[in-house]
Structure formats: C-alpha cells, structure tokens
C-alpha cells in the first residue's frame, strides 16, 4: 500500500484529469457526479443528525428543556424530511451507484451523462429551496404531511412541498438513467445473471424510484392545490377524504423504504464476498428476492393504516403481503450468513458494518413481522416502538450499508486508504451507539410512549435519558469517521489497484479509475464474486456449474 513510482506515473486518473472548479460543477463524468453527490448527502446527513441530537436533548426532560413545543414540532419535521429525502433516498444510488454502476458494467459512462448532471443540480436546487423554506418558516406537520392537519396548519407547508416535489425529479431521472444503462450498456460477456449484485439492487431500486416517485409528486401537489385553491380532496370539511391521502402517501413512502434498503443490501452482498473471499451461497436467490422486494413492496402500504379505520379485510390482506416482503429479506440474511461458510474471512471496517447490517436488518425485520400481525400493531402503532423499528431497518441498515460501502470503495474513489484500526474501532462504536439509542426506544414503545411527543408523562423519562446517551455516542462516532476520512483524502497511504484483493469487476481497472474508466477492456468471463480458482480474472475458462 506504500506509494510507488510507477503507480503515480500512470496516465492521469479522473481526479487529476482537470482540476478547475468548473470542471467539477459542470462535469458529465459519472464518477465526478458520484463524488459531488457524496459531498452533498454527507452534508445533509450531518444536518439531519444535528436535528436528531437537538431533539434527543429536548427529550431529556418532560416539558421544556431547550426549545418550545412549536420549535420541537418543526424540528422533527426538519429531521425527517432531511434524512428521508436528502440523505437516505439518494445516499447510496447517487453516490456509489453513480460511481460504480458503469464501471461494474464495463461502460464508459451512464446512458445519459447530461441528464445525470441535471439530476445533481435539480437535487441541489430542490434541497436548497427546501432548506430555505424550513429555516424561514418551517412546516410542523412531520415528514408525513397527514391531512387535514397539513391543510389547516398555519406553518409554511407549501414551499416545503414544492422543495420535495423538485427533489423527487432528481430521484426519477437518476433511476431512469440507471435502468437504461443496465439494459443497454453492459459490456460483452456480462449477461443478466453475471451482473454484480450491487448492480441488481441498484436496478431494483431504480424501478421503484421511477414508478413510485411520481405518485409522491402527485399527492404533494394535490395537498398544495387544496391548500391554495381550497379544492376538496382530502379535507372532510370540503367533502374530501383524509384517509385517501394516507393511501397515496404510503403508496410511495412504503416502497421508499426499499429505495433506502435495497442498495445497502447490494453493498453488503459485495463486501461479504470480498472479505470472506467466497462466492455468494446463492446468487440466484439474492437476485430473485431483490426483484421480489421491489415488486411486493408496492402492495404493503396498507400496514401503515391498521388503526385508521381501514376495513378488516384490507388489514388482513396487507398483513399477509407484508409477511411476504419479510420472507425475501430472510432469504437474503440466510444467504449472506451461509456465504461465510468455508470462506477466508478477514475482519475489517467494512466487515464490522456488514455484521451490524445483518443485526439491524434481522432485528428490524423481525419487529416488522411482529407489527404486521395486526393485533400487536394496535398497541405499537405510532409509538416509539415503530420509531425504533424503522430506525433499525431503514436507518440502521442503510447507514451500515452506506458506511460499509464508503470504507470499501474509498480507495477506489480517492486512491488513498485510511487507518484500518481506527476504522474498525469506530465501526464497533457506531454499532453499539445505534443499539444504545434505539433499544430503549423499543421499550418506550412497549410502555406506550407515543411518537412526536414534546411533553411526556414522567415514567418515560429514564429510558429517554438512556436513548439520548446512546445518540451522543453515535454522534461522536460519526465525527471520528468524518475526521479520519477527511484526513485520509490528503494524507492517507496511496492505495494499490486492488487493496482488498477483491474480485469485484470494479477493481479490474485502475484505482482511481481514468476518465473513461478503462485503458484496456477487462475480461468478464468469470462470474462476479468468484474466488474458487487462483487469480481467476486472467483465466479465460473457469468451471462454474
């Protein structure tokens, strides 16, 4: 891993090709766009995290600790919107997806590079508008905008809706770009069933983004129209139906959970193979369950409305369908675990994140199954149990995937490595910080603590204090990561082409890659994640039945 002469003398990589600011801001290179997105989502992650910490501090005591009730209501709305639309949804597809998808497919770029750049700037525009709206007026509806409250509240809901509407376009365009890229730009030799799993999960995610996001845009637009024009769509006072809003909203927002988790599953599939030097124990099952999640995920939205006066039959149907989604997740957990069998395992930073991911997905998934039994949901719905459940599965799992991917591909993206020991230690800290934050919240939910409470009965306090302590640990961990990765960008040891000795397709080109990704066409005859024969990439024919 030491810097070596020949390594540096190579033709210039994508980072050094051009260095002006304009060459970055107007770049059509998917790798640079990926890096731009990475900077943006990390910024929003810290912003959303800051809001979370402020909320946790407020909840240290019943009544007022540091902010008023009105401020608190705006703060949790800010936290939710920032984390969902500005971090979790774009987190992995726009960063690692952008950077790696074409490389993994042996393509020079995505199908529509100009559209890709547009996607970034639409995201920035929408996000800036959103933040401006939230800081100047602020909505106090929660990220879910439930009607009729969102129609009647005095806070400035309208600009926030418009901001999210704009950001949604970025999501659609990115998804569209990836779908076309996967269909049309695979290098000769990369058949569908030889695509790396990461590509498959990004593909599944893109389908959800393209199909579901327009529904979100539509429903937000309807709320905006009703607020401005007084049309009776969701407000019963004007002849509308408030529950219709929930149906439309969750038709997007439930699949959105899979937009967040599927890419993380892709990252994990890559790292589990790389660090156990082992083929996935069932490539097919992971592919089919990915598509299964993308499909069945569209038919489970009703489980958000078991207490909303939905018919008993509907509740039953949505309950059963939710169980099916859980099965697809269970298949994956078994596959990753059994992949370790007879492997050659090394514990690294990404491996710790992989283990954390398995834990959060497992526990978050099982609590999801418990919630889907309908009867138990009557107690847990809208309590901290649900808060803890979705923080485990869509936040915990996604962040484990994001950080795992960041550590795994950091050398690929920036050509430097980072201090491994510190990375492992911090990863352990993050996993435990996360458990310390949200385990008390499961128990709070059992006790009956409703979510979005500014003030609470005193018997809830001790668990709130525990949760806040965990959150500060978590915040501290994220700062350490930011610190050593920022340091490594400049001072980290220069990485070799394949520091992990991985056989993923993306490592077959230089590190960092040149502007058009390849100097020579790599050989794709071996299936991805295959470690069965010595030095496979250079052997034309490999036995794989």
């Amino acid at each position: 891993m030491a810097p070596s002469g020949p390594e540096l003398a190579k033709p210039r990589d994508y980072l050094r090709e051009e260095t002006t600011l304009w060459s970055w801001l107007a770049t059509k290179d998917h790798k640079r766009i990926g890096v731009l997105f990475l900077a943006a989502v990390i910024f929003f992650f810290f912003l959303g995290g800051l809001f979370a910490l402020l909320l946790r501090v407020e909840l240290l005591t019943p009544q007022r600790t540091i902010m008023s009730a009105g401020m608190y209501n705006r703060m949790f709305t800010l936290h939710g919107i920032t984390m969902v639309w500005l971090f979790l949804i774009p987190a992995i597809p726009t960063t690692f997806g952008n950077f790696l998808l074409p490389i993994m497919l042996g393509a020079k770029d995505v199908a529509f590079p100009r559209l890709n750049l547009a996607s970034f700037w639409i995201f920035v525009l929408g996000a800036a508008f959103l933040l401006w709206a939230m800081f100047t007026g602020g909505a106090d509806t929660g990220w879910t905008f439930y009607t009729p409250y969102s129609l009647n509240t005095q806070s400035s809901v309208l600009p926030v809706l418009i901001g999210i509407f704009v950001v949604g376009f970025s999501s659609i365009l990115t998804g569209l770009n990836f779908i076309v890229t996967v269909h049309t730009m695979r290098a000769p030799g990369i058949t569908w069933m030889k695509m790396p799993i990461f590509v498959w999960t990004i593909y599944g995610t893109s389908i959800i983004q393209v199909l579901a996001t327009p529904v979100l845009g539509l429903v937000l637009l309807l709320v905006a129209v009703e607020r401005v024009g007084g049309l009776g769509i969701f407000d019963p006072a004007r002849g509308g139906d408030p529950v219709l809003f929930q149906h439309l909203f969750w038709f997007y927002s439930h699949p959105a959970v899979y937009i967040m988790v599927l890419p993380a599953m892709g990252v994990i599939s890559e790292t589990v193979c790389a660090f156990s030097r082992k083929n996935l124990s069932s490539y097919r099952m992971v592919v089919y369950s990915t598509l299964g999640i993308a499909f069945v995920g569209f038919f489970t939205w009703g489980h958000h409305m078991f207490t909303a006066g939905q018919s008993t039959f509907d509740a039953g149907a949505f309950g059963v369908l939710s169980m099916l989604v859980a099965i697809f997740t269970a298949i994956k957990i078994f596959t990753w675990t059994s992949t370790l069998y007879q492997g050659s395992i090394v514990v690294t930073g990404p491996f710790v994140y992989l283990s954390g991911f398995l834990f959060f997905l497992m526990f978050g998934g099982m609590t999801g199954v418990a919630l889907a039994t309908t009867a138990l949901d009557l107690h847990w719905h809208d309590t901290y149990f649900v808060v803890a459940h979705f923080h485990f599965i869509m936040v915990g799992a996604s962040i484990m995937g994001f950080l795992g991917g960041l550590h795994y591909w950091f050398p690929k993206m920036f050509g430097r490595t980072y201090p491994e020991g510190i990375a492992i230690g911090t990863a352990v800290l993050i996993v435990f910080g996360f458990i310390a934050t949200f385990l008390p919240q499961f128990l709070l939910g059992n006790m009956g603590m409703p979510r979005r409470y500014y003030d609470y009965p005193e018997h809830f306090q001790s668990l709130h204090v525990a949760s806040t302590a965990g959150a500060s640990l978590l915040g501290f961990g994220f700062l350490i990561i930011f610190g050593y990765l920022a340091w490594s960008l400049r001072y980290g040891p220069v990485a070799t082409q394949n520091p992990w000795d991985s056989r993923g397709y993306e490592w077959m080109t230089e590190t960092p890659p040149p502007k058009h990704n390849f100097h020579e066409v790599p050989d794709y005859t071996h299936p991805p994640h295959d470690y069965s024969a010595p030095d496979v990439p250079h052997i034309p024919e490999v036995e794989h039945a």
Partner: protein
Amino acid sequence: MNDLLRRLLFLPEQGSTFAGRVDRLHYWIIGITFLVAAIIFFVGLTFVIRYRRRKAGEHTRKFEVKPGLEAIFVGVPLATFLLWFFIGFQDYVWVQTPPEDAMDVYVTAKQWMWKFAYPDGPSAVNTLRVPVGKPVRLLITSRDVIHSFFVPAFRMKQDAVPGRYSQIWFQAERAGTYEVLCAEYCGLQHSNMRAEVVALEPADFQAWVQEQRRGVATLQDAPPSVLPAGANLREVGERVAAEEGCLKCHSVDGTPHIGPTWLDLYGRTEKLLTGGTVVADEAYLTESMMDPQAKVVAGFNPVMPSYFGKLAPAQTAALIEFIKTLRTERLEKTPSQEPVYGPLRP
C-alpha cells in the same frame, strides 16, 4: 411467568381482556426473534473464527446452497410468519367486532381534548367512566384533524378521523384509572392531549349514571312553560343543545361535522338536497328539529332523528335563540368558549 415477561418488556399493566390475549403473542414473537437472532449470531461468529483468513489470497471452494436446503430456509420462516399472522389477525378481528351487548360510548376528539358522550344522557370531558366486566364499544370521530385514542394498558388504539366514525371495543378487567394518550400527531398540544379511563365496579358505575341522570332529568321534566328561574333563553338553549345531543352532530364554531354548523346559521340561505333553497329562519329551524328529513341541506346525509315530542316548545325556542346568538362577530370579540357541554355535576 406472564408478569415477569411483562416487566422485562416494560409493558404496562394488563387492564383489559384484550391486553392479556395480545401479550401472549408478543412474548412468543419476541422470544423467537431473540432465539433466531442468537442462533444467527453464533453461527456467524463460528464461521468468522473457524474460517478466518490464514494467508492472503487464499482460494475457497465454490459453494452453492442446494435447492432443497433453500426450500427449508424459505418454507420454515414463511410458515412461522403466517402462523403468527393467523393468530394475530384473529385477535385483530376479535377486537374489531364488538359483542352485541356492548355499551356504546361516543368519543369525539378535538384539538386538544376528548369528549365522551353516553347515549342515555351524561357526557364528560377527558374522563371516560366505564363499568368493570362489561364490554364497551367506542364510536370514535374527530371534529378537526386526525387524533388517535390510545390506552396503553388496554393495548389498543383507534384513529379519530374527521367525517367518519370508527369503532373499537374493550372490557376492563379490574377497577382502576388508565392513561389515555393521543397517538396521532395533531398539532401544538398533541403531547398534552391526555385523558383517562376510569373503570368502576358496576355498582359504582350505576350510582354515577343515576347521579348524572338526575341532573338531566330535573331539566327535562320541568313544565314546558316554566324555565329555570333567572335563566335567559340563550343559556337554556346552550344547555339543551348539550343534553339532547345536538352538539354530537352540529358544531357551534363553524367546524364541519355531521350536520351543518350552527355558526351564522340563522338567516343563512341554504341549498337543499332536493334542489332549491331555503332561508334558515325560525320556521325552518323548528321544522328541521321536528321533521328533519323534510328539507335536508345539500352535502349532508339525512341521518338526523326527529325531536318531535322530545323537545318541549320552550326548549325549541331556547335552541333557536341560542342558534341566533352564534354569529361570527360574537366569536371574534370573545375567545371561543369550550366546552359548551361540561360534565353535568349538579
């Protein structure tokens, strides 16, 4: 065992018949979750230790899970999940289907209070009194935004959705006071929208109902021409409106509800369901009380029962006088007065 598990999981006491029932499922699911999580953890840990990397660049045997094994990995969890669902859904259907002998209580939520009205008279704010050992059906609605009626000790909640009634039922197991929390975010005072369920022994509950009835009866039984001494019509009308249940469907502050609001009703030109219009004067208001189906205002369902024979003329008059005073200007000058219907303590 039940108590130990309940405390371990931080669950509140089991106040209703449903609570004990659903907690059993809870213990099983959480128990199995922990068991499976532990198994996966130890299997993973064993692999990590047993198959740790001994030298860089090792090769591994290509290994694919056999279809038979895959079928087990899919089948067993699927069967387990569906079994849980089957048990849970039975409980869900059970709690959504009130027994026929259940006692009805109308629950109306508004920012930020709960109102409980019993069909045979009394009503109360933020305190729901129920007899122990008798099924109680709650008919829940809201007057403004969505709220959710949540009793942790009963393990149940039901959203209060404006414009529609939803129902749930429970049976309190022992006398006591149980916390009611609003579980659906409803604005600034959401976290303070709390109430309580007071479960009383049947005898105590009957005594309370009788006490409440006496308060209602003294007013109802008064000779039609005689009004309470010193009372003006407006105040009497306000009381009659609460006692007779008018306010269960009509709001006085412009809030949309099941019937047209009374705010600014007097003198208003209303569109009718059957076409045409009518001016809401004394005649029309009286007709609407006595023969409500005759001229139904467009946009509302013809659901109002007739009050013919139930309202004394003086009471009818008092109601009209009360409606006349409900002007927007009046409400603008004075802060809105809530509740119009307090608990009827004599």
